[in-house]
């Protein structure tokens, strides 16, 4: 008898989603879907508001990565006020924003690895859910848990020093930034008491990367084989091909590394990217126009960024990047769980960038804001922790927003997450008579690799648990488990 399984809610991700899996008469998976069941409506209710409110208003989409929305919106508004497309700001304006952004990447990546992912790695996918959680990590691996908390705190402090508050600050304003870095903050970040200084953060970033590499060596076949499938990859890269998480040009590569897009000015993104709406999800499905809906979907985020960039412009992360690329012989990496590996290399890169910026005198003095001639359309992109983030605004002659289009990182990863769910459903559930908790967790492990933020993606409040429902051939609910 065919069945439908629903995993709702999906846990240890941000936002609220569910998975449904249909089984046929032979208990083989016939269809699987990752549904996003939240609705936010930001794109609509910013309409009519003055454009300068956008960076502060729209960041309320999220409490985890508000800085990304704050800065992407600010970059779009920079274009609106004629302050350039990411390169026209004053050195102080751009570098303060970069420091804020790398603080955000650092805290978000630390949160994801330590709080959301480490329970699966430390205890195993099939461990008792009662211990396979962040409390279990804190009880059994206290040092690791403390590192996670302190690294996140450090990143949050960087955000406070640049944006004014740890969550939902106001630092980035049209055409620049509203403050310099204070000498007290600079001194504290560089030479603060152990462990709250950049030297320790660099050491811990290297430590956690070593931890993952050690785990990888011992579990290579699992890591390489889990939800591994070819895809396109998209991100911003610096003009010279370097990784740049704050600004650059669009580049997309296929699963073999052939460039699909290169050196594309993101002001023209609409020529290259389109979004598809499907009736069963509030999250859209973006794709590359040139390849069409079926083949044009792509991954974003750490895995994609390490596939699109040619090198990482910081020495420690570059050395790790070279080892990482060697795993796939220089070809794009299509292994789902390598997202974690790539994310930790970016964590290290962020720490290095923070150190470099903290020693830059431009943060302490110089002009904060520039102005130019206003235009009525502005697009801002950056590489948020979870991937490429698009903010697109248009205004009327009275300075009111008339249109907003946000393609957030998790939206870009919608189809890849569905593909991953499908892959895991087939490989773990096909032909099985009973759906067990570890099978459901395997589905979540695949989703978690992308570090999705479903709240952002639907532009929800609350937790993000996963529910799996099992339906028979007549679409009758047979079994339902919540994790």
């Amino acid at each position, binding site marked *: 008898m065919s069945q439908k399984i629903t995993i709702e809610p999906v846990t240890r991700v941000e936002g609220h989603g569910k998975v449904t899996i249909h089984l046929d008469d032979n208990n083989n998976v016939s269809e699987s879907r990752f549904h996003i069941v939240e609705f936010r409506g930001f794109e609509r209710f910013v309409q*009519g508001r*003055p454009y*300068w*409110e956008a960076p*502060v*208003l729209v960041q*309320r989409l999220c409490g985890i990565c508000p800085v990304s929305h704050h800065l992407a919106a600010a970059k779009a508004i920079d274009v609106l*006020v004629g302050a350039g497309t990411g390169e026209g700001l004053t050195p102080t304006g751009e570098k303060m924003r970069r420091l804020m952004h790398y603080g955000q990447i650092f805290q978000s990546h630390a949160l994801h690895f330590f709080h959301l992912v480490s329970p699966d790695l430390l205890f195993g996918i099939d461990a008792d859910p009662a211990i396979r959680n962040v409390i279990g990590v804190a009880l059994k691996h206290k040092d690791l848990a403390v590192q996670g908390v302190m690294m996140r705190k450090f990143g949050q402090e960087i955000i406070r020093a640049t*944006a*004014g*508050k740890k969550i*939902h*600050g*106001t*630092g980035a*304003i*049209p055409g620049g930034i*509203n*403050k310099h870095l204070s000498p007290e903050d600079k001194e504290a970040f560089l030479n603060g008491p152990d462990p709250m200084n950049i030297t320790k953060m660099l050491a811990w970033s290297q430590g956690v990367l070593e931890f993952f590499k050690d785990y990888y060596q011992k579990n290579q076949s699992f890591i390489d084989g889990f939800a591994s499938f070819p895809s396109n990859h998209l991100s911003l890269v610096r003009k010279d091909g370097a990784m740049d998480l704050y600004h650059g040009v669009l580049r997309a590569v296929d699963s073999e590394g052939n460039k699909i897009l290169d050196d594309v000015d993101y002001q023209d993104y609409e020529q290259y990217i389109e979004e598809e709406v499907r009736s069963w999800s509030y999250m859209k499905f973006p794709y590359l126009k040139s390849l069409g809906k079926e083949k044009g979907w792509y991954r974003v985020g750490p895995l994609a960024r390490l596939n699109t960039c040619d090198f990482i412009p910081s020495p420690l992360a570059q050395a790790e990047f070279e080892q990482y690329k060697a795993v796939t012989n220089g070809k794009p990496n299509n292994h789902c769980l390598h997202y974690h590996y790539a994310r930790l290399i970016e964590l290290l890169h962020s720490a290095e960038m923070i150190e470099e910026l903290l020693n830059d005198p431009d943060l302490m003095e110089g002009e904060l804001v520039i102005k130019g001639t206003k235009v009525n359309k502005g697009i801002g992109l950056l590489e948020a922790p979870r991937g490429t983030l698009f903010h697109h605004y248009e205004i009327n002659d*009275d*300075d*009111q927003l008339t249109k907003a289009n946000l393609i957030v990182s998790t939206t870009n990863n919608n189809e890849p997450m569905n593909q991953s769910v499908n892959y895991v459903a087939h490989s773990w559930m096909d032909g099985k008579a009973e759906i067990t908790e570890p099978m459901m967790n395997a589905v979540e492990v695949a989703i978690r690799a992308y570090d999705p933020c479903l709240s952002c993606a639907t532009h929800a409040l609350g937790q993000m648990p996963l529910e799996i429902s099992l339906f028979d051939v007549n679409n009758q609910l047979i079994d339902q488990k919540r994790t």
Partner: protein
Amino acid sequence: MNKNKKLYFEIDGKACYAEDGQSVIDAAKANGVFIPSLCHVEGVKAAGSCRVCNVKINGRNMTACTTPVTDGMVVENDIPELNELRQAIIEVLFVSGNHFCPSCEKSGNCELQALAYRYQMLVPRFPYEFPIKGVDASSEHIFHDRNRCIMCKRCIRTVTKDGKNVFAFNGRGGEHLHVVMDEKLASQLTEEEAQEAMEICPVGAILKKEQGYLVPIGERKFDKLPIGSDIENK
């Protein structure tokens, strides 16, 4: 405290002195006592519209901005009964407008928000009205958000161009009554005058265009000390 002033009065038992004709709120300020208000502007004829300055004068509730000091007057100000009343008035003002502090440019500089903090408002006891009074972005330098207006009449009484009022009441009663901006006059305001108009507004109803969040969090007017501290610490 100037003991040469003519009139003697007391606020919460404190000996105070006032000029003849001086309002209770102005005299209190001169004597280092804070009486909250959202509509009062020193030097401008009192409107008595916000009611937040309610005090007990000789046992009777009066607005401190419209009542002149008389010799021997006994004023009660910082007492639980009045503070509770003020909290309720502030709550009414919050629910009758669309005061979304998280993204409001005036956050940190907003007197309504500052009073809500001072009088420890948590969740309003009244239902939100969600008014739809619209915004007017038609003038060159001012963005007028009527949904945030608390109808204190500060702008009506103080913002003028060539002797003409830029703002005025429109409509009669209830949801019909709101403040409107004369687009032509408002467009003649200089940037400095637009900035002054924004600052005279106790909330975020009048915003100067093309700027926002220029003052970092931590350096805004009420970030470090509660509203009224400047008067009390004088």
